């Protein structure tokens, strides 16, 4: 008796046949992901240790000069330019996520408290910008912040910008664009948690004379943590790598790591350095998510 028969959910079969059948299902997608995701990513890792030839070709010598360059070391001494870009990207992604979360709370509570019929309408209103192409939404801010419109005029009257100037490119425009870009990414998952909120816990806290902030942090926030976590990840990760918004609204001076990577793979044609910057971005994203996860667990444990 060579094969040992097993029963798998009513199916009398052998382990080997089952595994073979499963692998058949998996093979197409797995092959695809291996070929176009895993192997290219590994090549990218290797590439970050290569160097660029004078015509933009790749020279496969093992060197860490790309990382040295990223850290600011060059033949002419040390400059923190690239480190600034990395640091700025983390700050922008962090603040974008934070502001989005702060704005998302009232909005999701508001939507959850609508009667069922209008609730769908409000949800649809959040989903539409969620699915509207990023380039279009960034471009729309371009228009709103134009010098002819009241917003720029108001800022000029207040003396914030010179008369007749647009509100872009500026740090303010980048944040405006970023928050409006990613806000729906927080609202939708957060709403799904708020909708399922157990209000009796909130009432219990109130009955026991908790202060408003205590009610929020001890009775509401822990309950909304699952949705909030998804929202934070969905916002932070793309915000770290974004390059459309800073490119259109931030101008050349306000470069983020996404723009730096785009430059290396585009105009500069310095793939090895682009790969090294990508590695830095990946590591920073992972570290931030890990930190967040640990904090998230602390909040849940409290």
């Amino acid at each position, binding site marked *: 008796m060579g094969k040992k028969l097993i029963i798998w959910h009513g199916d009398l079969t052998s382990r080997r046949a089952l595994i073979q059948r499963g692998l058949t299902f998996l093979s197409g997608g797995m092959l695809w992901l291996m070929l176009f995701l895993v192997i290219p990513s590994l090549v990218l890792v290797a590439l970050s240790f290569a160097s660029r030839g004078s015509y933009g070709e790749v020279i496969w010598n093992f060197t860490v000069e790309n990382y040295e360059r990223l850290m600011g070391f060059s033949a002419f001494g040390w400059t923190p330019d690239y480190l600034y870009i990395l640091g700025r990207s983390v700050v922008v992604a962090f603040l974008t996520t934070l502001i989005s979360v702060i704005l998302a709370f009232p909005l999701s509570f508001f939507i959850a408290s609508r009667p069922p019929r209008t609730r769908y309408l409000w949800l649809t209103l959040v989903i539409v910008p969620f699915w509207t192409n990023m380039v*279009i939404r960034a471009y729309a801010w371009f228009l709103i912040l134009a010098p*002819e419109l009241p917003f720029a005029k108001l800022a000029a009257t207040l003396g914030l910008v010179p008369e007749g100037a647009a509100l872009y490119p500026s740090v303010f425009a980048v944040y405006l664009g970023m928050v409006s870009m990613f806000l729906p990414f927080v609202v939708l998952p957060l709403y799904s948690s708020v909708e399922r909120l157990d209000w009796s816990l909130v009432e219990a806290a109130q009955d026991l004379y908790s202060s408003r902030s205590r009610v929020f942090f001890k009775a509401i926030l822990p309950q909304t943590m699952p949705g909030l976590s998804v929202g934070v990840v969905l916002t932070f990760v793309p915000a770290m790598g974004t390059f459309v918004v800073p490119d259109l609204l931030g101008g050349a001076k306000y470069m983020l790591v996404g723009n730096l990577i785009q430059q290396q793979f585009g105009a500069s044609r310095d793939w090895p350095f682009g790969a090294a910057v990508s590695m830095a*971005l990946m590591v920073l994203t992972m570290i931030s998510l890990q930190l967040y996860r640990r904090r998230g667990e602390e909040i849940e444990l409290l």
Partner: protein
Amino acid sequence: MKATHPVITSLATMTMGFLYLPLFGVAIYSVNSAEKSLLWEGFTFNWYLQLFENEWIIQTAWNTLKLALVSTVIATILGTLVAIGINRFPWSRKANAFLDVLLHIPVVTPDIIMAGALVVAFGALRAFSDVFEPGMVNMIIGHITFQIAFVALVVRSRLASIGHDVEEAARDLFASNWYVMRRIMLPLMLPGVVAGAMLAFTLSLDDFVLSFFTSGPDSQTLPLYIYAAVRKGVTPEIHALSTLVVLITVVLVVGAERLGRKKEI
């Protein structure tokens, strides 16, 4: 449900206004007859009519649609098969963890890194075949690569919620593998497959970064076109084009939601 505090209501309304202000601004200026200035000069549909006469834009719109359709069909098939393969077979804990990580890579990787990796991959593959010159094929491959994971995740969660009971009942009644798959599993998981396909389709329409990195001169899509145009300065034509895209998005979202709600009943 409790009554909402007026502060929450006003904050929520302001946030919604903040989300929609730019979109409405563009819509209003798309019907403004002034060409150079942003002052209101009267209502016109001219910019929309000009769009439909612009062959380059029509070609671009067609490219966008082709890219989304082809990549969605392929990604839905591959992603669904992967989901079945993961959910319906006795993989060891390690194999399951590996598959789980693999499917989450595209979700937690900033898309610009995936785009960079694909640029490098296509650069290498170009040595073997001209197919990998920047252009439509590369864009389709790139889109499928992130779509597969999303489709598989959606379908997998649907499969997990179906459970094994129906399948076991069918097998007890001597249904063959093929019969179980076609008459039991497929109808049950169809809502998940449709949801996954719609997600993949919208992700493709939404994408800018991957297309930007892998496109060639003949495979411009609408987002790429708008991006290039904005850098030259805003024009009423671009307002009209953007407004049209937003309107199409609205139709898609409302349609998808209708479809989803019918399924629930």
